[in-house]
Structures are given as structure tokens and as C-alpha cells.
């Protein structure tokens, strides 16, 4: 699943470590999420979206929707 985590982190000036601590996961998980290698559970997706004060769909992009013209 595509996501804007890296972009939003840079906008909000948060490091991977800081974001990992805020959502109670390891830094490796944040790295995997940013690379699109791992899809988070709804709980983790919600926690991450809350950090950036956005809705889940503003942070995570479902590929079927991304492909729509």
C-alpha cells in the first residue's frame, strides 16, 4: 500500500525514531512502512494518522484508488 508517511514526517520535522516511539513500534517498522514493504493494521494506521492530525485515507493510499483516473 502506498503511503505519505515519509513526506508527512519531513513536513512535520519528525524523525523515524520519534515517529516509532509515538506509535509504539520499532524504527524498522517505520522504515518498512515507508518503503511500502509492510501494510499496517487498522490500529497502527490510525495511530500514525493521528500523529499527523489527518484521516487514514490522507496518509495511506489504496492502490486501486491511486490507479483511478
Amino acid at each position, binding site marked *: 500500500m502506498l503511503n505519505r508517511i515519509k513526506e508527512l514526517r519531513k513536513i512535520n520535522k519528525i524523525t523515524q525514531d520519534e515517529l516509532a516511539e509515538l506509535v*509504539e*513500534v*520499532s524504527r524498522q*517498522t517505520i522504515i*518498512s512502512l515507508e518503503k511500502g*514493504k*509492510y501494510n499496517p493494521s487498522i*490500529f*497502527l494506521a490510525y495511530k500514525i494518522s493521528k500523529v499527523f492530525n489527518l484521516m487514514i485515507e490522507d496518509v495511506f493510499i489504496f492502490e486501486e484508488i491511486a490507479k483511478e483516473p
Partner: protein
Amino acid sequence: MKVEYLIKKQKIFSLVFIVIGVTALILYLLTDIQDGIMLGITSGFLPTGIGLLIAYKKAENNKEMQKKIVIENEERNIFINTKAGNSSFWISFWIVFVGTIFGPIIGLNLSQFGSILLILMGIIYFSNVAINHNKY
């Protein structure tokens, strides 16, 4: 998952290890049942159980250790361990199948096959964990 629940779970797990170790020690001291194996089980389970219990008792009042415990049990790690366990089960299943068919032909007895299988299962599981850590 709450850290208190995780610590409690691990303390119960370590108590089980201690009980197994003590039982094996009693059997070693008081009976002649599989002396070597009982001593091996005691040497493995008892110190591990005691060590785990001490570590998790310390973790109750240590925020840094509690953070590490939460991260060890994060969803990605659980996902990877579950996936590795699933793959390992099926690989081991086929090894048992092949061993059952060809073991008697090459003169492998049950005890030897069991020992080889135990070692292989460990290697297969941890290899799968490493592969999945890289993949996800």
C-alpha cells in the same frame, strides 16, 4: 498490547520452564530414568527459567526494558514470527514425510531422526524469520 500483560505472560512462561527444570532435576537425582537427558533438560530449562523470571521482575520497574518488551511484541514482529512459523511447519511436515519413507531404507532410527529433525526445525524457523524480516 499492555506491557503489564506481556510481563505477566512471560513470568508465567518462565515459571513453566522452572517447573520443567526442577522436575527433570528430581527425576535425575531420584531415579535412573534417562540420566543424560534429564541432566540436559535441567541444564537448559532451569537457568533459562530463573534468568527470564529475574529479567521480567526487573522489567516491572524499568521503563527502558518495558519499551523493549512492547517493541518485541509489535504487530510487525508478530506478523513475521507467525509467517515464519507457518512456512516452517510445512517444510518440517515434508521433512517428516520424506524421513518416514526413506529413514528405514538408510538405517536411521527414530531417536536419530528426532534429533536431526529438532535441529533442522530450529534452523528452518530462524532462517524463515530472517528472510521475512528482510522481505517485510
